């Protein structure tokens, strides 16, 4: 027995990799089997298809489901709708988030900075659902925004905005404008924080040097600050973009009941038993994100994380 233990300890002493691996094997198995394994099995289903007559899944390799996904105009609508909204939300968050992050990184005292950090993080501590439901009330026809416009005798302005084709609707909460506002609000912290981190890293000496060399404020911003902060913006946009792509709760509560990818996946696998189509739908955000992250990586977005 002692012999066996001796040789075991000798073996593990000589083979450092063995010890290393034996500690790592459990988390690796977890990641490999439970996480990646189930994900791959699920995605693999998109190469099977549903038998039109019995409603059973046919376990034969084919592209039928993927063809169904891309040949039905209703499905294409869902994909375009989701990607377009995710892109708008990302751009909106970047435009709103950048000035806040810039102010936090360059113009505040440490105390104010901590206060701003907490102010930005605070909404994340309350329930996501509570925040979305309260937005439904804020945006409602008899909600506070409408009331505000009425008090200012500006109903005509709101009505004009809401009568815009496509993005308008009977009330703010029943329109794409409302969805855009809510998504932007919900994901904004995920945009501000990475931008703030990347702006912190822009050395003040570079900005001073730029001024010394005769660049005006606008030139300094576009030639020095923005390029150096770009990785942060891209990192933030990965959050806002992918989170919007996959969300299925906000479209249920706000908007016109038109489906988004997340809802399509949920409904097809949950109530319809059409797992192949659900899997095909979930392939799309993954492919979109892989392409996006690849481009982002080329632009150096991950150096800022």
């Amino acid at each position, binding site marked *: 027995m002692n012999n066996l233990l001796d040789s075991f300890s000798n073996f593990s002493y000589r083979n450092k990799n063995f010890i290393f691996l034996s500690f790592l094997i459990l988390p690796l198995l977890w990641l490999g089997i439970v996480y990646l394994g189930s994900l791959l*099995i699920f995605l693999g289903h998109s190469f099977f298809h549903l038998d039109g007559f019995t409603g059973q899944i046919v376990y034969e390799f084919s592209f039928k489901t993927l063809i169904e996904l891309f040949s039905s*105009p209703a499905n294409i609508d869902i994909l375009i709708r989701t990607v377009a909204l995710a892109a708008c939300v990302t751009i909106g968050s970047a435009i709103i988030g950048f000035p806040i992050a810039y102010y936090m990184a360059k113009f505040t005292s440490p105390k104010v900075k901590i206060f701003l950090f907490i102010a930005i993080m605070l909404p994340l501590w309350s329930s996501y659902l509570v925040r979305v439901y309260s937005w439904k009330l804020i945006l409602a026809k008899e909600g506070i925004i409408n009331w505000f416009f009425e008090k200012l005798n500006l109903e005509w302005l709101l009505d004009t905005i809401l009568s815009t084709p496509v993005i308008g609707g*009977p009330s703010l*909460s*029943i329109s794409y404008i409302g969805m855009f506002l809510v998504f932007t609000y919900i994901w904004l912290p995920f945009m501000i924080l990475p931008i703030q981190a990347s702006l912190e890293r822009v050395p003040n000496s570079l900005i001073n040097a730029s001024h010394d060399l005769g660049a005006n404020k606008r030139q300094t911003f576009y030639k020095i600050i923005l390029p150096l902060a770009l990785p942060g913006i891209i990192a933030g946009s990965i959050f806002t973009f992918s989170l919007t792509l996959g969300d299925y709760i906000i479209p249920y509560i706000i908007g016109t009941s038109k489906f988004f990818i997340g809802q399509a996946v949920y409904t*097809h696998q949950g*109530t319809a038993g*059409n797992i192949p189509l659900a899997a095909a739908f979930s392939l799309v955000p993954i492919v979109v994100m892989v392409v996006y992250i690849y481009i982002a990586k080329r632009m150096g977005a991950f150096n800022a994380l």
Partner: protein
Amino acid sequence: MDYSNSLIVYIRLFIDEISAMNNVKNKGETMKIFNLMMGAILAVGSSSISAAPISELGSPEGELNIVAWAGYIERGETVAAFDWVTSYEKSTGCNVKVKTAGTSDEMVALMNQGGFDIVTASGDASLRMIAGKTVQEINTDLIPSWNTIDKRLQDAVWHTVDGKHYGTPYMWGSNVLMYNTDAFGGEVPDSWNVVFEEQTLADGKSNKDRVQAFDGPIHIADAAMYLMYHNPALGIKDPYELTEDQYQASLNLLRQQRELVGRYWHDAFMQMDDFTNEGFVASGSWPFQVNLLKPNVPIASTIPKEGATGWADTTMVHAEAKNLNCAYLWMEHQLSSNLQSDLGAWFGAVPVVPSKCVGSDLLGPEGCKINGIDNFDKIYFWKTPVASCKTQESCVPYYRWVTDYIAVLGGR
């Protein structure tokens, strides 16, 4: 079962793959062993299903695990007056544990996992579980109050197969047309056309963007029911059993409805918010919302001439229930105690024991009538559309309802 099947397929594909890669000659041998193994596993899994129901009750086991819809099993913790669990626990000594489920599919999945004794299954889940042998036949002689059940429900098709009973009716209810009395000028709308066809309401404004519809694919049945009344030429016999032509006609009606509906509803409380804050005036709905909205909003409900869709739930016993005696005692309790009347009041539903309609303070003297007990014959109870149907040669199955309803919501 679904999962184990797909697992088998994967392992088969895997073996195929490995064999091809290694150029293995005895692939047949490997497959044989694999098939034997899987056969053995499946046999173990399915052998424990007993055939005949028990013939007499033993002593209670002290525990009962229930899968139920939210709000179905109340012990006075939400509102103190609504409690139908404490008395059961006291008299039988069976402690009740509840797992709530949000959808029928979730219920079926939980029951397939096992570890539960009974489930309050709706019409779409019940037959699936009977076919899947997840639930067992019950002996109605062991439930003394069985004969007090509404005669129309005792042998209902969603829990009785080949004359065998697989459950005890729990509660039923109907969807109603909820409307704003101000917008309708005090008149009662007599047709569902107020949510299907554009028209000017009594308050002089169009119903466009002021009506709602349920956002589940099962709403197609409501459209089919409407056509069944207004377009007999289509030959619809059952709104859940539609041929291709009848189905397309229903979809066209729903496309027309999409023009009127700003937002569909799928959550009871969100719909209540929409009727309070968004200016909606008419929608298919549940008595639940109507009862809760009435104190604050001028709301009333009706079942129009076309009829209405509805739901009927059944308590079913798991095939491998550990606490069988407690389960039988519960089924007796659900019929004989205050459960029927109080749950009816709580949920806006109708007791399955008609005698429970009188003498309850919570339900009130008119409660059953308000919740629709006289409308039983006008109600088309919820069931899952399947390809092989009784009233037609072949029908459009449910998964297509899902895909097409999503398309309708998207404006296609």
